[in-house]
């Protein structure tokens, strides 16, 4: 009985929280990978990279403004550019309010862009929130509820993404929104390129928030614990659902960044080629998708097959091109062969 009480009141609240943090950590790694990819094409596709930075700065500024608004500080000045943003507070406040606004600035950019996609999915009926689930208030029970809610949410989203019909204007618009979300998760730099934002910068900012004001952190954790107790008392499955939504936002962000990675791969491969050949990687997804749609038109999973195969064909083509162009040993071999031939001729 005593172990059950410890499990319910001590371990159970941590289960969904830790799981959400795990998903967010994956998101952080994917963000870093995307930034690395963008850095590889920065000099050749400056406009594309500037656009991605602008989206990142826009969402960062929105997160900052949301932080100021929610804490009652208010926003007196709001301006955004491709390189920088300015969000000035209406009142100078210190203490918990300022800390909370800064927490929004540090964490908001990771969740606000996917939250917009989440709202679209919820409004268009692709995902549903089920509040009538039975919950067991133990570590295992909370994990089960977290996973089951996350699975429900992800099912609708993944089903939509996998069956994207690129001939449908609404699906196309959704894909563009998804790519814009991926591009805008975090800016690559601020202050006109003077300050680069990497995973270390983000983690350092979060560490400062936690270490410099531990009592504020305790207040936030205490609020969450209180929320857990209320949901436990009224037997509402809201506590685990909240963290499931946060983890789902990370999944949306990861999926959207997958499409961004795909775009970056195409652009990177295109840079490796010369003259008209540089358009080959760009046209491969288009050329492969149309015939695949025609071939699988009568199949149940025709849309999914067309999309997945088109993506795979493009990825394989890009990898083969990169390998072919950058395979120095092969080129050296070719050079040595031609040298032998010229020597023979002589």
């Amino acid at each position, binding site marked *: 009985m005593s172990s059950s009480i410890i499990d319910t009141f001590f371990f159970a609240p941590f289960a969904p929280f830790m799981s959400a943090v795990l998903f967010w950590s994956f998101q952080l790694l994917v963000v870093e990978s995307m930034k690395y990819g963008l850095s590889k094409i920065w000099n050749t596709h*400056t*406009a594309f990279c*500037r656009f991605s930075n*602008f989206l990142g700065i826009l969402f960062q500024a929105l997160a900052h403004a949301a932080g100021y608004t929610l804490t009652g500080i208010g926003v007196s000045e709001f301006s955004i*550019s*491709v*390189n920088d943003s300015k969000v000035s507070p209406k009142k100078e406040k210190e203490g918990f309010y300022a800390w909370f606004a800064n927490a929004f600035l540090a964490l908001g950019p990771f969740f606000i862009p996917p939250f917009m996609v989440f709202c679209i999915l919820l409004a268009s009926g692709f995902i549903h929130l089920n509040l009538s689930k039975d919950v067991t208030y133990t570590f295992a029970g909370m994990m089960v509820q977290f996973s089951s809610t996350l699975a429900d949410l992800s099912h609708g989203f993944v089903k939509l993404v996998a069956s994207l019909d690129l*001939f449908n*204007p609404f699906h196309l618009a959704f894909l563009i929104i998804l790519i814009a979300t991926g591009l805008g998760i975090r800016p690559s730099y601020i202050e006109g390129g003077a300050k680069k934002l990497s995973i270390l910068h983000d983690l350092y900012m979060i560490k400062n928030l936690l270490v410099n004001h531990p009592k504020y952190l305790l207040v936030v954790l205490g609020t969450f614990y209180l929320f857990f107790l209320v949901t436990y008392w009224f037997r509402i499955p809201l506590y685990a659902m909240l963290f499931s939504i946060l983890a789902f936002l990370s999944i949306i962000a990861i999926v959207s960044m997958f499409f961004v990675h795909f775009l970056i791969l195409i652009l990177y491969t295109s840079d490796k080629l010369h003259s008209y050949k540089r358009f080959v990687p760009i046209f491969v997804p288009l050329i492969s998708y149309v015939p695949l749609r025609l071939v699988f038109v009568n199949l149940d999973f025709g849309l999914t097959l067309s999309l997945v195969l088109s993506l795979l064909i493009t990825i394989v083509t890009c990898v083969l091109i990169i390998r072919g162009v950058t395979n120095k040993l092969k080129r050296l071999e070719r050079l040595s062969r031609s040298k032998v031939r010229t020597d023979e001729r002589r």
Partner: protein
Amino acid sequence: MREDEELLLRDEHIKKILTPHPLSFMGLQSIWIFLIVWAIFLWWMATYSQYASILSKWFVLLPVWWGVTLFAGIVASLTAIRWRIFFLYASILAGGTFLLWYNGWLFKSIAKDFILFYSAGVSAILAICSFAYIKSHRYIITNLRIIFKGGILKKRERTLRYDKITDIDGSQGILGQIFDFGTIIPITQSGFGLGSDQTFAGGGVETKGKKLGIFGFVGGGKEVKTPRTRSYYELHGVYPYREVRKLIEELVQENVLVPYEKKQVEIQKEQLELQREMKELLEKQSFLKDD
């Protein structure tokens, strides 16, 4: 290039020849982009969507095509304060409907396909026209002046000497920041390059009795001077923005007399006057000697 060189004065040389970035005329480009995107969307809705059965009927399809296009035309006209966009859309719609009726396709299912191809054709023509309009702009920056040239049928030309420039206004939208282009408006002493934003509020009351009618009207106006001119008379959407702006600033600086230089010029003028007087005196002296 040769034509441009013929314009040059003595000791004048070209620093840069610029044309606007195609994306800097996004307002103009959006006229044809909207037409084709809306036509594709309507065609898809009338062919494959769940509303296909309703939209494929001509008495639904045609009003929807007209309604949305005209609504977009009104919004664009109000935003740009140019009613010609609305009239352009109205004439395109009228032309399309006339062709549908003339060929006897109006009541047939081919109407939706015709709207798509007709819109694509009109959009292509408009795209070519807007491309020609953009490319008709030419800005020649020399060491002495800026020459603004342009016009497809009616040719326009403006020459602006750097010493006449009092102020330089620069603006860069989001697209400009992404693609590194922007608009530079050189404002002259005469106020060339300045426009005005006007707001007006008014209201009227009218009551009519059997014999007498009273009419009352109150109103108010506000005018703000703002840098604005036609794209032919400004450096519209020039690339690379920062580099061009710096070049213009430097050229203006080179041609503007600073207070110290003004003093130097005055001293030189005085010296010239003295030398002239000395010359006259010497001439008089030599004349007296000869006598």
